[in-house]
C-alpha cells in the first residue's frame, strides 16, 4: 500500500521533508552502527540508534509506507532488548541492522523516484527474530520481578489511604500490565483509560488549588520556575531552502520512466543566509549612491570630487560583489565528511569480503566543497577505496610475514589548497609495480614494447587510467557495477579536476585528486588567437613561455617544444579551433603549458591578454557541446568569449601521439 500519489501539495511537501529527514537519519545510523562495533557497551549510542529507527518507523507509518515501517519495527524490537540489557550486541546483530538500514535506504530511494515500495524481506525478518530470541532468558524474569515489587509498595500505601477500588491501583498492581511487552487487550484498554481518567481527576483537583493561589494575587510560581529551569544552549538553526525546481509536480503520476525525482532541497545554516542578507543590503546602498552620483555627474561632468566619489563607490560595489559571490558559494558548500561518511561501511564490508584486516583513518572531514562536486565524487571514491582494499592492502598473513602490522591502514584525507580541494586516498599496502603494469599494457596491446621501455615509473602508473586496462571487473555488492579507473579519471576530469598516483613498491600507494572549489566561477587566462579572445582555466595552466625557434622541433610529425629538460607536444590553438587563415610561423607567439595529472602539452597562442575571474555559462541547447570548448563567458565590456576545454585538448594530443588509442 501507500503509493506516493500525493496530489495534495501539502502532503507532497510533507513527503519531501520526510525524504530529507529519513536520509539524514539513515546517514546517522550508518555512522553509529560503525561505531557501535567498536564500542559495544555504549548505551547512549544504542539509544541513539534506537531513536533513529524509531523516528523512521513513526514517520514512515504516517506516510503509509508500511514496508519501511514494518521492517523498522523489527529492528526496533531487537534494539529495545539491547537497551534493556536483555541481549548483548554482537556482530550478527550489527550485520542485521546494517541490512535493515540498506533496505530502508533502497526503499526510500525508490520512493524518491516515484516507485512504490515493494519487496519480500521475510528472510531478514526471520533472522532478526532468531537473533532476538537466542533461547530462554531467565534474566528477563528477574528484572521484571524487581520492578513490580517496587510498584507494589507504592500502591499499597495508596490503598491504605483510599479504600475505594481504584483503576489506577489496578493498573499499577497488575504485573501483566506493568511489565507487559504486548499491546493491550480490550479489557486492559478500558482499564488503562479508566486509570487515565483518574489521573485527570486528580489533576483537576490539584490545579484547582493552583488556580486558587494564583487568583489570590500571588505569583508564587514565577521565581521557582526560573530556578528550576535548565540552562538551554540554543543550537544553530538550520533553514530549509527550496530549490523550487519541481516543487508542485506530483511525484509518481505515470510509470517509473516518466517519474521525476523529488525536487531538490538543501539545508543552509541560518548564519550564512543572514550574512547574505547583510551583504545585499550593502549592495543596495552602493547602488543608490551610484545612481545619485550619476545624476550629479551629468550636471557637472568635470567635477573631480564627483569622479573620485564614483571610483570609491565602484570599489565598494566591487568589494560587496565578491563578498556576495563567496557567500553564495558557501551556501552550496558542504563538509566533505558527508562524502566520507559511507567509507567506514564500505571498508568494513570489503575487509570482510576479502578476508583482510583494515583500519580506516579519515582526516579533514570539515573541509568544505561544492555539493554538486560531492555528488559526482561518490562513485570514483567508492571505486578507489575498493581498489585499495582489494589490490592495495595485503592479507593479514602476508603482512605479518613481511614485518608489517597485521592490520592495514587506508587513509582518506581532505584539504583546501588555494582555490582547490585536494583529496588523498592512501594505503600502506603492497604498492604498484611499474614493470608489471607495463607488461600488462603491452600484453593488452595498449602500448608497444618500445614505448614500455622508455616509460618512467610515474608514466607507468598512469597506465591504469587507460580504458581497457583494468582486468575483469568484478561486480560487487559495494561498488555495484564495476567501473574502471578510466571512468574514475573521466568523472574527475568532468569536474575540472585531476588525479595523480604515486606508489612505492612494498610500502603503499597514494591517489591524489585535485578539484576546484566550485564549478561555476574560475580564474581564467585570457589569450588571443587571430582576432578572437579565448579563456583558459588558470587552474590547469602550469607556465607560459615565449617561443624560441631553437626549442621547437618535430617527432613523428608531431610538433614538440623543449622546455628545460622536458619535451612537450605542441598544439596550435588556431589549427585546433579551425580559425580562418592561421599564421604559419611561430615567431613572437607564446606557449601556454597546461597539465592534467602528469600529462602536459604546450598550447600555442598569438598573445596573452591577462587574468580574470570568469563565470562559466553553458553554450545552451542550440549549440550543444562543441569539441574543445567548455563553455562561454561574458567579459566586462560585454563581449562573449569561449572557454577552452583543456582536458579535451590534452586528450586529443595524447590520443594522436603516445598511446595511439
Amino acid at each position: 500500500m501507500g503509493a506516493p500519489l500525493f496530489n495534495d501539495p501539502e502532503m507532497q511537501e510533507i513527503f519531501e521533508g520526510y525524504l530529507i529527514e529519513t536520509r539524514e537519519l539513515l546517514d546517522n545510523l550508518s555512522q553509529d552502527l560503525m561505531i557501535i562495533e567498536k564500542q559495544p557497551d555504549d548505551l547512549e549510542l544504542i539509544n541513539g540508534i534506537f531513536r533513529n529507527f524509531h523516528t523512521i518507523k513513526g514517520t514512515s507509518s504516517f506516510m503509509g509506507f508500511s514496508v519501511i515501517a514494518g521492517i523498522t519495527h523489527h529492528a526496533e524490537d531487537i534494539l529495545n532488548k539491547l537497551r534493556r540489557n536483555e541481549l548483548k550486541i554482537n556482530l550478527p546483530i550489527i550485520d542485521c541492522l546494517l541490512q535493515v538500514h540498506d533496505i530502508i535506504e533502497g526503499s526510500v530511494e525508490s520512493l524518491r523516484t516515484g516507485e512504490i515500495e515493494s519487496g519480500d524481506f521475510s528472510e531478514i525478518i526471520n533472522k532478526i527474530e532468531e537473533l532476538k530470541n537466542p533461547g530462554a532468558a531467565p534474566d528477563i524474569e528477574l528484572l521484571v520481578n524487581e520492578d513490580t515489587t517496587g510498584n507494589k509498595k507504592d500502591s499499597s500505601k495508596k490503598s491504605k489511604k483510599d479504600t475505594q477500588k481504584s483503576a489506577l491501583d489496578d493498573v499499577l498492581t497488575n504485573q501483566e500490565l506493568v511489565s507487559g511487552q504486548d499491546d493491550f487487550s480490550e479489557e486492559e484498554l478500558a482499564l488503562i483509560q479508566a486509570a487515565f481518567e483518574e489521573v485527570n481527576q486528580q489533576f483537576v483537583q490539584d490545579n484547582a488549588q493552583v488556580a486558587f493561589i494564583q487568583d489570590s494575587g500571588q505569583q508564587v510560581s514565577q521565581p521557582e520556575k526560573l530556578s528550576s529551569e535548565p540552562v538551554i544552549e540554543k543550537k544553530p538553526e538550520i533553514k530549509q531552502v527550496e530549490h523550487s525546481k519541481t516543487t508542485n509536480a506530483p511525484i509518481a503520476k505515470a510509470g517509473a520512466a516518466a517519474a521525476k525525482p523529488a525536487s531538490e532541497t538543501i539545508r543552509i545554516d541560518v548564519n550564512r543566509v543572514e550574512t547574505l542578507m547583510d551583504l545585499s543590503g550593502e549592495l543596495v546602498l552602493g547602488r543608490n549612491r551610484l545612481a545619485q552620483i550619476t545624476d550629479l555627474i551629468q550636471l557637472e561632468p568635470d567635477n573631480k570630487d564627483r569622479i573620485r566619489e564614483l571610483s570609491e563607490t565602484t570599489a565598494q560595489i566591487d568589494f560587496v560583489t565578491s563578498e556576495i559571490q563567496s557567500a553564495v558559494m558557501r551556501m552550496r558548500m558542504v563538509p566533505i565528511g558527508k562524502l566520507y561518511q559511507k567509507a567506514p561501511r564500505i571498508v568494513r564490508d570489503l575487509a570482510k569480503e576479502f578476508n583482510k584486516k583494515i583500519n580506516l583513518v579519515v582526516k579533514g572531514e570539515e573541509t568544505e566543497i561544492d555539493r554538486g562536486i560531492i555528488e559526482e565524487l561518490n562513485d570514483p571514491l567508492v571505486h578507489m577505496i575498493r581498489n585499495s582494499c582489494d589490490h592495495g592492502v595485503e592479507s593479514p598473513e602476508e603482512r605479518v610475514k613481511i614485518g608489517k602490522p597485521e592490520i592495514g591502514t587506508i587513509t582518506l584525507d581532505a584539504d583546501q589548497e588555494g582555490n582547490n580541494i585536494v583529496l588523498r586516498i592512501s594505503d600502506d599496502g603492497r604498492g604498484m609495480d611499474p614493470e608489471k603494469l607495463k607488461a600488462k599494457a603491452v600484453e593488452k596491446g595498449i602500448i608497444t614494447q618500445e614505448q614500455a621501455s622508455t616509460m618512467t615509473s610515474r608514466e607507468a602508473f598512469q597506465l591504469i587510467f587507460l580504458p581497457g586496462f583494468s582486468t575483469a571487473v568484478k561486480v560487487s555488492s559495494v561498488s555495484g557495477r564495476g567501473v574502471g579507473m578510466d571512468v574514475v579519471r573521466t568523472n574527475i576530469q568532468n569536474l575540472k579536476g585531476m588525479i595523480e598516483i604515486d606508489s612505492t613498491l612494498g610500502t603503499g600507494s597514494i591517489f591524489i585528486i585535485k578539484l576546484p572549489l566550485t564549478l561555476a566561477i574560475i580564474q581564467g587566462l585570457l589569450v588571443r588567437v587571430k582576432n578572437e579572445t579565448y579563456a583558459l582555466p588558470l587552474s590547469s595552466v602550469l607556465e607560459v613561455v615565449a617561443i624560441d625557434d631553437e626549442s621547437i622541433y618535430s617527432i613523428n610529425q608531431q610538433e614538440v617544444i623543449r622546455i628545460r629538460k622536458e619535451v612537450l607536444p605542441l598544439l596550435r590553438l588556431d589549427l585546433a579551433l579551425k580559425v580562418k587563415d592561421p599564421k604559419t610561423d611561430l615567431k613572437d607567439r607564446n606557449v601556454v603549458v597546461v597539465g592534467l595529472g602528469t600529462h602536459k602539452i604546450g598550447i600555442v597562442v598569438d598573445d596573452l591578454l591577462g587574468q580574470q575571474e570568469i563565470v562559466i555559462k553553458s553554450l545552451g541547447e542550440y549549440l550543444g557541446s562543441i569539441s574543445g570548448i567548455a563553455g562561454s563567458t561574458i567579459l566586462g565590456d560585454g563581449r562573449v568569449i569561449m572557454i577552452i576545454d583543456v582536458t579535451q585538448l590534452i586528450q586529443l594530443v595524447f590520443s594522436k601521439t603516445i598511446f595511439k588509442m
Partner: protein
Amino acid sequence: MKFLVVDDSPTMRRIVINALASFGFKEVSEAADGQEALAKLASENFDFIITDWNMPNMSGLELTLAIREDPSMKHLPILMVTTRGLKQDIVEALKAKVNNYVVKPFTPQVLREKMDAVLKSIGKSGL
C-alpha cells in the same frame, strides 16, 4: 487555544500541526526536544502540549515530569505520542501523569478524539 508540539522529527511535527490546523487551531509552536520545549514554556504561555516520547537530550517523559513538578505549568494538559502502544510504556506515562496518549500512526480523527477526551476529563471543553 495555543499548542506546543514537541517532536524531534520535523515531519512528525508537520503532520501534527497540519492536523491541528484542520481542526481550526492555528496557534502552534514547535520544539525539537524536551529542553527546547521547556525553553518555549518559560517564555510563552500554552494551553495544550502534544509531545513525542523518544527524543534526544530530553524525552517526552522527562519533559512531563519536569512540567508536573513546576507549579506554574503543572496544570498544562499533556498528550503523549508514542510509536509503541506497549503496556509497559503506557503505564510509565500514566505514572508520570500524562493526561492521555495516542499511538502512532494515528488519523487526525483519533488525535481529535484523544484531545477531546483529555479536555473533557479535565473539565475544559474548549474544542
